[in-house]
């Protein structure tokens, strides 16, 4: 009998397909062109007027289409038309309304951006485009629980008025658009519109500077000259919004079921949202109405060799569906990536050593295990900067005095960011030589690009100045060995931070050690986020860590962080250190209105020199992103500006299936061994028990 059972059991095991028992996806999805990705934090908004986070752009960047986009392959980053037929026609006018030359900055009062969009572009299918769905009765709404409950779906052509409608939404105070404060300084009539609209619908009024010129043409008039405005036109804020969508979602009762424009976008992009459960899964599917859009046929040097032009001129998008799953923890995510159930992954510090090793000259390379799996590594310096800021309003380290400046310079030398990157960033960063990261116009490499206050150029490489140079600066500042001769006590500086967890302690201790090199006693003031922000607003902090991620690839988007009229305390702006230097301000005002060219470059270099000398920041580092991709994930190139990268990528489904099967064969024998072991342990006990039971009877 036992033998029979055993035989059946073995036959059962051998007849089962034991591959991919651990597959987290339904079996009917196998072999389809589906990209599997994840998100660790639920998006808060998917309305392009409100959304301003990278984790939200991942979704809306594929759904909404601004008139312009960044070329996927070319570097430096450059804009190209997306729904527009060509780049905007830019015209300059003086106060009298006469056309003037763009170089005559002094006389420019207004700039007109005229944009013509392609005809025939259609929105995704959506219930909002059916008139009856916009006039639902309460009893009809009561029966609706999801957008899929609507039987009738419609579409319509994209028109210029949709872009204008969206700009009005940006100005609507009820929408709380994060860029409303910026745009009111530029778009003519924007602020007036915001003040007048009140509770009314934005359809009822117009912004004086934004005009529909025809079915496919619209014009935006901005105050003065602001060449960076074109970059804003490539952001989802300036994507079109059909008025029907807003009317549809405003119906009483839909928002009670979380059916709102903030959660269910309506766009013309390559994908549309089919499932929106931010607690579990977000699913994008290919938009059947997507307009003709071809993969680029040109890139930068080397792209062809990397196979990035194999799909040139082919119609996009290539992937049919994208499933984003909420994964809050990095360990399960990483393991699923290794099993082939995610197509790409970042590298957390837990798995860094398993994935990456550094070779001789500091270049990152995949470990042999990763290479054996056919995984590829891509690195890119992000257009972001992390820095240590000195509050320039502080009486000890702030201001323009020579003594304070020398202390700041000395600290800049003493804080060894090369070591920091190596210890805390796993080598994922570049020490910053100034304000501009790699890839931004004005960034210079080699000797011309180094910060001469902190570094020397030795044997073709930058080298941090010795601590003796920093000590010399401290002596000159009146603090030999960090001691104030008047009091005989060490200089005490305060460092405000929100890093309060146990994990942050080594980092804080490291900062203490850096300051101790100069004899400065560093007091860490750990505080919660709210109090920290309050200190920044009131200027009561002394030193702090801060960062900036570029909105667009232009030096203006970095230098404005030190423009005095953006001072945090005085104006509530982004100049968190409250830096004020009249010469820098003057150069900034000049530079921001200029087109790229030799003159602009010269001004940028002057500005870099000023801030390097004044050292209101210890220029920390530019983070480097490390991403891993399976071999079957094609056409992947880091593009830190584009939000709509998905449509360019492709999955080799066959290769993925093959690898998944190979990597995921279930293993049963340890369970059988464990079961046998359990029986062996139990057997003597059962015997002992039976023996005892017999004894009792006797």
């Amino acid at each position, binding site marked *: 009998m036992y033998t029979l059972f055993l035989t059946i059991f073995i036959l059962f095991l051998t007849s089962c397909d034991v591959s991919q028992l651990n597959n987290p996806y339904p079996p009917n999805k196998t072999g389809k062109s589906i990209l599997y990705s994840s998100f660790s934090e639920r998006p*808060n908004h998917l309305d392009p007027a409100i959304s301003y986070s990278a984790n939200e752009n991942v979704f809306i960047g594929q759904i909404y289409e601004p008139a312009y986009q960044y070329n996927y392959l070319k570097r430096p980053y450059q804009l190209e038309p997306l729904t527009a037929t060509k780049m905007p026609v830019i015209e300059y006018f003086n106060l009298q309304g006469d056309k003037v030359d763009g170089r005559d900055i002094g006389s420019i009062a207004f700039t007109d951006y005229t944009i013509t969009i392609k005809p025939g572009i259609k929105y995704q299918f959506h219930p909002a485009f059916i008139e009856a769905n916009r006039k639902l009765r309460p009893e009809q709404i009561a029966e609706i629980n999801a957008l899929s409950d609507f039987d009738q779906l419609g579409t319509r052509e994209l028109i210029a008025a949709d872009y204008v409608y969206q700009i009005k939404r940006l100005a609507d105070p009820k929408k709380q658009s994060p860029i409303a404060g910026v745009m009111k300084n530029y778009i003519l009539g924007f602020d007036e519109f915001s003040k007048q609209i009140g509770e009314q619908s934005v359809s009822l009024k117009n912004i004086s500077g934004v005009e529909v010129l025809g079915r496919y043409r619209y014009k935006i008039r901005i105050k003065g000259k602001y060449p960076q405005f074109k970059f804003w036109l490539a952001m989802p804020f300036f994507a079109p919004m059909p008025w029907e969508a807003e009317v549809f979602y405003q119906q009483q009762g839909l928002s009670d079921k979380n059916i709102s424009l903030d959660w269910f976008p309506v766009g013309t992009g390559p994908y549309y949202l089919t499932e929106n459960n931010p607690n579990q899964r977000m699913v994008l599917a290919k938009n059947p109405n997507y307009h003709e859009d071809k993969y680029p046929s040109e890139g930068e040097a080397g792209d062809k060799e990397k196979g990035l032009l194999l799909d040139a001129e082919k119609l996009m998008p290539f992937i049919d569906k994208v499933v984003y799953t909420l*994964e809050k923890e990095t360990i399960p995510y990483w393991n699923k990536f290794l099993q082939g159930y995610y197509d790409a992954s970042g590298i957390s510090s837990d798995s860094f050593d398993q994935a990456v090793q550094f070779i001789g000259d500091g270049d990152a390379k995949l470990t042999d295990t990763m290479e054996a799996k056919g995984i590829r590594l891509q690195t890119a310096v992000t257009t972001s900067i992390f820095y240590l800021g000195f509050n320039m309003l502080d009486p000890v380290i702030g201001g323009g005095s020579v003594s304070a400046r020398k202390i700041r310079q000395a600290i800049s030398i003493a804080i060894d960011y090369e070591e920091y990157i190596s210890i805390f960033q796993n080598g994922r960063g570049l020490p910053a030589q100034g304000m501009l990261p790699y890839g931004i116009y004005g960034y210079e490499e080699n000797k011309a690009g180094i910060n001469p206050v902190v570094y020397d150029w030795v044997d073709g490489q930058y080298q941090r100045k010795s601590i003796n140079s920093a000590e010399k600066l401290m002596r000159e500042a009146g603090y030999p060995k960090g001691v104030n001769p008047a009091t005989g006590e060490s200089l005490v500086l305060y460092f405000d931070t929100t890093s309060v967890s146990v994990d942050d302690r080594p980092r804080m201790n490291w900062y203490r050690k850096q300051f101790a090199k100069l004899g400065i006693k560093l007091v860490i003031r750990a505080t919660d*986020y709210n109090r920290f922000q309050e200190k920044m607003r009131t200027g009561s902090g002394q030193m702090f860590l801060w960062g900036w991620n570029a909105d667009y690839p232009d030096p203006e988007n970095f230098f404005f962080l030190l423009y005095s009229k953006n001072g945090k305390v005085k104006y509530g702006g982004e100049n968190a250190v409250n830096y004020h230097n009249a010469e820098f301000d003057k150069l900034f005002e000049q530079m921001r209105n200029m087109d790229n060219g030799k003159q602009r470059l010269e001004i940028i270099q002057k500005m870099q020199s000023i801030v390097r000398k004044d050292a209101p920041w210890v220029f920390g580092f530019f983070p480097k992103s490390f991403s891993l991709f399976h071999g079957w994930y094609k056409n992947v190139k880091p593009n830190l500006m584009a939000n709509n990268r998905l449509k360019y990528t492709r999955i080799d489904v066959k290769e993925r299936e093959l690898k998944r099967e190979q990597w995921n064969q279930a293993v049963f024998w340890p369970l059988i061994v464990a079961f046998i072991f359990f029986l062996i342990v139990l057997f003597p006990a059962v015997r002992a028990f039976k023996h005892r039971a017999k004894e009792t009877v006797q």
Partner: protein
Amino acid sequence: MIQYILRRCLYAIPLLVGVNILTFILFFVVNNTDDMARMQLGQKHVTEQSIQNWKQQHGYNLPLLWNQQASSSEKFTKTIFFQKSMGLFILDFGLSESGRNIAADIKQRMWPSLSIALPSLVVGLLVNISVALMMVLFRNTYLEFSSIVLCVILMSISSLFYIIGGQFFIGKLLKLVPISGYDTGFSAIKFLILPVLIGVVSGIGSGARWYRTLFLEEVEKDYVRTARAKGLTETQVLFKHVLKNAMIPILTGVVVVLPLLFMGSLIMESFFSIPGLGSYTIDAINRQDFAIVRSMVFLGSALYIIGLILTDISYSFVDPRVRLT
């Protein structure tokens, strides 16, 4: 009994009001309405005007607890506390600060929480009772001694270790089930095997020892000696008599936690990507979403009170000596 239940429900009202006031005070001691607005509006380009707009739109432009400017009863009703908290008593949770309907979110998220918590509780209970009975059955043998040692070891291990270890061994090395994830309907089963197994194994140490203590206390009683004297076997004594009498403290202990099963488990849900309620409150605290925090604290308190009432009721059912008056 109905009178008793009604009285307990009425007692619950001041308790819930108290919890509400306490939550409100604690939340606003740490955050002010400007902080909340800044958190919701993001970090870039936030102006004073946008903060004021946000507060007005979300009803945070009123005084917190007392409106000096208003007249008569409006001094109390035109406050953030009244406007935001009173709806809870008719189970109107309102919208979160990011605009999502909280009741819809809770309704959606409580089922995944329950789908992991309920099997863990039931299977855990069965396993713990079985192990405890086995320890009592084999008392004074090497099996009991080694089981106690094993229980102490199991109790001493952090729950995080069970989760990571379980995912590594069963999900990664043996590749028997998905490492994490969730689906609806029957497709959820393959995702629930591992978390339920880990939930059960991690609870054996403390559970089995606790039940063993209860059973040992019972086996020393007179009725057990009588049963043995009647000639019943040890297994009959244990399963027919001891288990039945020991069920009273077990049952009351289980009933009290039943309503709270909806609230989910933070770590378990996080690691297994279960879209439950476990992290809902913590995420809301991190995002300074007062609407969710007050709703979840209110719901948690109400469920706890319901659990206590159910315990009293169940006690009267299993022990005829108890009368609810």
